[in-house]
């Protein structure tokens, strides 16, 4: 990972303005689009002045706004998760979806739904447990417990772990019910029916995760220097690895529990953030969070517009943005040999 980057204040200001603009326009697009054409940004104004009609007002308050909030929070969670994973594995292709963590969370969730009595845990906890389990297996395949992570094995092993978990999810759903179509919507990441309760649950986790990520950011910087340097500077890399993995898995797990596995946000956003702000994680953590939120807000707007009046799940929009970038990295990234 390139630590050397421009600390040019003008460029930093420009990047910050860019992110701000993306966040603002993303929020407006996400709020303005939707099934009812009579609900738009005007409704917001009417709500503020108390002049809104009952139905459009309720649509804005109870459908549009929680969905927009969920999209932004998912972006924060997944971007931070990807940023942490790329830092602790020092692998530019690492992200919750590529390492199988998203699919592991989905499997944990399905297990909780299929055996509610046996698990005894909440859905969120099972999703996080699944995410951690899948991440641990991928890490073991890559040789992480032997001391040295093979970058290519990490990625290919993660894809295989993800494929296995995903097949197990489909297996469970086939036996559970014949709802093939709704399964497809869920497995591609759909936030069409989000309410404030979902947003509140996510916000708590995003807040905790963001704080922990900020707390870890200095250690992540030292990881980027290499494990030996990290140890020399007094930060045990194993501790950083463990803490980072737990935070990343938790952030990805709760996101999957709410919206289903959304791929590639966690892959793309850290790269964009590094390109804009350089390699310092103390800046990257807030920058990636804001960028992730902006990307997901724009994706949410696109998901409502692409096939109007039908909707494309937001996870699918993210995949259509992210998959070409993943191909680009697969071909050109030099960090894998």
């Amino acid at each position, binding site marked *: 990972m390139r630590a050397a980057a421009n600390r040019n204040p003008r460029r930093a200001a420009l990047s910050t303005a860019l992110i701000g603009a993306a966040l603002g326009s993303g929020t407006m697009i996400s709020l303005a689009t939707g099934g009812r054409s009579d609900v738009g940004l005007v409704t917001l104004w009417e709500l503020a002045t108390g002049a809104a009609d009952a139905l459009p007002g309720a649509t804005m308050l109870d459908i549009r706004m929680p969905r927009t909030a969920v999209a932004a929070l998912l972006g924060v969670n997944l971007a931070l998760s990807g940023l942490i994973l790329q830092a602790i594995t020092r692998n530019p292709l690492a992200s919750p979806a590529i390492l199988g963590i998203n699919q592991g969370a989905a499997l944990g969730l399905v297990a909780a739904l299929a055996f509610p009595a046996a698990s005894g845990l909440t859905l969120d906890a099972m999703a996080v447990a699944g995410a951690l389990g899948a991440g641990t297996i991928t890490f073991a*395949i890559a040789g992480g417990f032997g001391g040295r992570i093979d970058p*290519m*094995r990490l*990625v*290919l*092993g993660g*894809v*295989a*772990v993800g*494929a*296995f978990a*995903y*097949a*197990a999810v*489909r*297996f469970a759903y*086939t*036996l559970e019910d*014949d709802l*093939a*179509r709704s399964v*497809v*919507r869920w497995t*591609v990441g759909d936030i069409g029916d989000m309410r404030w309760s979902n947003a509140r649950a996510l916000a708590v986790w995003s807040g905790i995760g963001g704080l922990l990520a900020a707390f870890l950011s200095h250690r992540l910087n030292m990881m980027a220097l290499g494990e030996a340097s990290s140890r020399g500077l007094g930060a045990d890399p194993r501790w950083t690895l463990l803490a980072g993995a737990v935070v990343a898995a938790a952030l990805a797990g709760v996101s999957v529990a709410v919206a289903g596995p959304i*791929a590639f946000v966690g892959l793309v956003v850290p790269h964009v953030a590094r390109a804009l702000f350089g390699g310092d994680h103390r800046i990257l953590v807030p920058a990636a969070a804001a960028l992730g939120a902006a990307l997901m807000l724009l994706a949410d707007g696109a998901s409502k517009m*692409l*096939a109007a009046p*039908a909707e*494309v*799940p937001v996870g*699918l929009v993210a*995949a*259509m943005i992210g*998959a*070409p970038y*993943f*191909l680009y*990295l*697969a*071909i*050109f990234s030099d960090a*894998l*040999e």
Partner: protein
Amino acid sequence: MSADVAPTAHRAGAPTDRRWTVPALAGLTTAVGLASIWSLSAGAVTIPWSVIANTLFGLDGPRQDYIVLNSRLPRTVLALVCGGALALSGAIIQALLRNALASPKVIGINAGAALAVCLAVIAGLSPGWLPAIAVAGGMTAAGLVWFGSLRRRASPARLALIGISVGFLCDAGVDFLLVSSPPYLFSAPLVWMTGSLWARGWEDVATAAPILVPLTALALALSYRLDLIRLGDAHARGLGMDVRLERPLLLLLATVIASVSVAVVGALGFVGLMAPHLARQMVGGDHRALMPAAMLTGMALVVLADAAGRALAPPIEVSAGILTALFGAPFFVFILLTERRGRP
């Protein structure tokens, strides 16, 4: 790709003794036969073997004409044809790319063919065109992977990664088409996409078999060319083989075989990966023995996956593709961990 790599030694532990070839092939044939009989008997209605025999051979006694002849027999035949085809395709691809991780799915053929077929369904093309469309899609995806790996001498793992990412790209396209088009178009393809023989009938056999059976025979007949290529390009050229011409032709054959299979049974992952490896463990690396063994293994795998999917929780059917993925993904990890840098 890896042009003049010295031939790698025989894999340790794989029996290369010729004496084992015939017993292994005989054993595999028996396994395929038993699996087929189980496939005819398993399902929502379990049919005893005696009834199957009565039905198939027109004997006196209780018969189950409709279920056996119209539902389970075409499925079993299709599973045999496509399983053998996918396995041969995988064996050819692994030999040509010298890549133990390669398979039709891993280099993107499955997903490319599936995307093309989805587009064709939306465009309202008649089912007779689907094999041709699938081949076009599979070739496009494989071509993309090939171009991607040209940038440098891609390592086997890098090639697999590029193929996987092309697969992701196509999968996103397939998901988009499935979600954004009216339900009536895709209620059946949805099941099919996951790699399933559900509701496949004689008309699907009629679509696939006339293409796959001759091409399968051709692939078997060309086995020894793969042995020449395995010696390394310089040796193969010395033995009178035009490697630059034959390598793309063989790759094209593998792509066509896999794509046509995908057009009728969907993206049955990992069969093309597992079957050649299992066969190599049984008969060694000589392709004249390996290719038939891989074909029989692939047949047995797909028939077993289809039958097990019906027998697990009748009347619900678990897609064969789910079962092959449940076994295939750990298998992929196993190869990733045991093959040194992924060279067979």
